[in-house]
């Protein structure tokens, strides 16, 4: 009995402190697919489509990893995870990579035994109001009633923001996102606050979406990105560079449509390295040299993925904003592939 308790305690300790040190990449290659943890449904990030497949920008990160490892973006299986079980699922090896709109924070990166490998979406909390209120800045929201989800960091951020700016507000709290939107739409509060990507998605549900707009202020930083287990650096590299390649491809003007032509005609050595026709970039990652070509060909560059799932032409209609390339004034700065 004591022995069993000891084993259980040791397993628990190992689970938190010394996660997987075996090479995930070998496991992944052996089982023939990437196991990817996604959300249970967040519009544009990971949601089921009518054919029963998962789509979204979080989903496409995992498809890119599968394309890099196997040369086939479909060799990935998705595990929908609730917010509470997501980290355990990664720690226990149930999933190989967690791509589930997870904010990169210090405690998660350290104490949980996880490693964030990059950012695929810069989010932040914003405010939505009715256009006819005639307010153009969040600093003028003194005395407003605010609809918000109960018990979330959203609620805390809002409290901090109003206190820091010496403003009064009246919170109107609800349990579920649908309730918050319905209350805001019915006029029970002046302002609706959640992450900007969420605001954009929920706005579609309003009776007259065009009568509302999002204030320019962003009151919190929510860098969302894929996560792997701490201590398995090679696998972390594969996921990290799969993501970077998507962004780098956009910067270089490579997309799923022109990548075949560019592969034949490109003369720029930097482009050739990304396409795998020069250098041994794949080999040092432990992959084939066409890894990046497969990502761009099968999944697309970051801009394509963004436009397809959350961009202005989708119902979500989110402008690039901070997720624009650094060359266009955004934050997306791919590390050089060389």
């Amino acid at each position, binding site marked *: 009995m004591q022995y069993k308790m000891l084993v259980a305690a040791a397993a628990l300790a190992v689970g938190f402190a010394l996660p997987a040190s075996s090479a995930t990449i070998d496991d992944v290659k052996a089982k023939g697919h990437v196991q990817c943890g996604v959300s*249970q449904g967040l519009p*544009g990030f990971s*949601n089921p*489509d009518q054919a*029963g497949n998962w789509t979204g920008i979080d989903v496409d990160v995992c498809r890119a990893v599968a394309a890099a490892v196997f040369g086939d973006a479909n060799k990935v299986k998705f595990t929908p*995870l609730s917010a*509470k079980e997501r980290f355990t*699922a990664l720690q226990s*090896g149930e999933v190989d990579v967690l791509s589930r709109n997870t904010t990169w924070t210090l405690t998660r990166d350290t104490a949980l035994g996880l490693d964030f490998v990059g950012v695929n979406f810069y989010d932040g909390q914003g405010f939505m109001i009715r256009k006819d209120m005639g307010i153009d800045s969040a600093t003028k929201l003194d005395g407003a009633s605010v609809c918000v989800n109960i018990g979330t960091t959203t609620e805390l951020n809002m409290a901090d923001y109003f206190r820091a700016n010496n403003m009064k507000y009246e919170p109107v709290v609800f349990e579920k996102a649908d309730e918050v939107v319905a209350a805001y739409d019915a006029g029970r509060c002046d302002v609706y606050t959640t992450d900007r990507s969420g605001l954009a998605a929920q706005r579609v549900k309003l009776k007259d979406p065009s009568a509302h707009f999002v204030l320019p202020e962003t009151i919190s930083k929510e860098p969302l990105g894929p996560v792997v287990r701490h201590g398995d650096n090679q696998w972390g590299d594969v996921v990290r560079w799969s993501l970077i390649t998507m962004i780098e491809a956009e910067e270089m003007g490579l997309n799923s449509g022109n990548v075949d032509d560019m592969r034949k005609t490109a003369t720029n050595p930097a482009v050739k390295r990304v396409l795998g026709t020069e250098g041994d970039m794949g080999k040092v990652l432990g992959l084939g040299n066409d890894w990046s070509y497969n990502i761009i060909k099968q999944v697309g560059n970051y801009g394509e993925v963004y436009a397809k799932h959350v961009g202005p032409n989708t119902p979500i209609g989110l402008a690039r904003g901070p997720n624009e390339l650094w060359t266009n004034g955004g934050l997306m700065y791919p590390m050089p592939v060389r």
Partner: protein
Amino acid sequence: MTDATPTFERSPDLPPPASTVGVVGWLRQNLFSTWYNTLLTILALWIVWEAVPPVISWAFLTADWAGTSRDDCTSGGACWVFIKEWFGQFIYGRYPIEERWRINFGSIILIVCAATLFFPRFPYKLWVSLFLIFVYPIVAFFLFSGDAFGLEWVETPLWGGLFLTLVIAIVGCVFALPIGIVLALGRRSDMPAVRAVCVAFIELWRGVPLITVLFMASVMFPLFVPEGLTFDKLLRALIGIMLFQAAYLAEVIRGGLQAIPRGQYEGAQALGLSYWKMMILIILPQALKLVIPGIVNSFIALLKDTTLVLIIGLFDFLGMIQAAGTNPDWLGFAVEGYVFAAFVFWVLCFGISRYSLHLERKLHTGH
């Protein structure tokens, strides 16, 4: 002047006053008998008048039924197109479309077998029951999950929708019943060790909420087993639900056991029956019959509780409806989804409760 004997003829009964018969009488007696009844009636009528027409208008008159996308929902009422377009996934989850016949086939076997048990004169009832209890679970397991007999393997993460709800509810209940019976007997046993174990088990599982059980099974359990050793998430949840349900059923059945008069036990013992024979032949048939409402009640509760598996990332019927509502092309139809879910759950639960009434009447032999 004739000398007629005055006869007392019974004069015909006068009709009752118009205000006490017919519709008017009924209304006066039941709805307007006193001033406060009149007030309540008027209030109730006003509420019905305010509430019902908008709901009917939303759900039927101005609803959109035809179409394939949200653009077809223009009339302002309910958008049933959403339900229609996602119906397959609501029923089968993300089970591969070309493999869905397996679920249909498995369901048909179950329905046909169960239906034969309804006919009082069907001769092979015993065989059908034995098949359902011992063979069908194995057949269904291979049929649904595959990887044998040339069937493609369908992993449990792809299971979902109403199919998953029913799998969890049926497995949870069917396997929990025998465990519950054993626990109930154990709790009333004379052997202290057996009794202590059963009491501890029942009180432990009854003392924690189902959501905690699911959470332990899904989140904590993997941390306790060696890395690389993973059990199927659905299996973990099923075992958790089964043990949880068994503890509840044990208490329901114990109630039945306690209601059986002492004379039944003594009579059985006087006949020289062993403990198990006494239980199986005399006590349990009476006790279980007594607690049918209780058992059905727990089954209905379990059926609705299955929606909790959403928190461990399984997409049951309700979870699938919620997930469908996050598709960017179908945002904003949550109300239609919830109404549909409520309707289906109501039909299921109402059906079960009707069946239990039928069972009670059939088994009512009168004490």
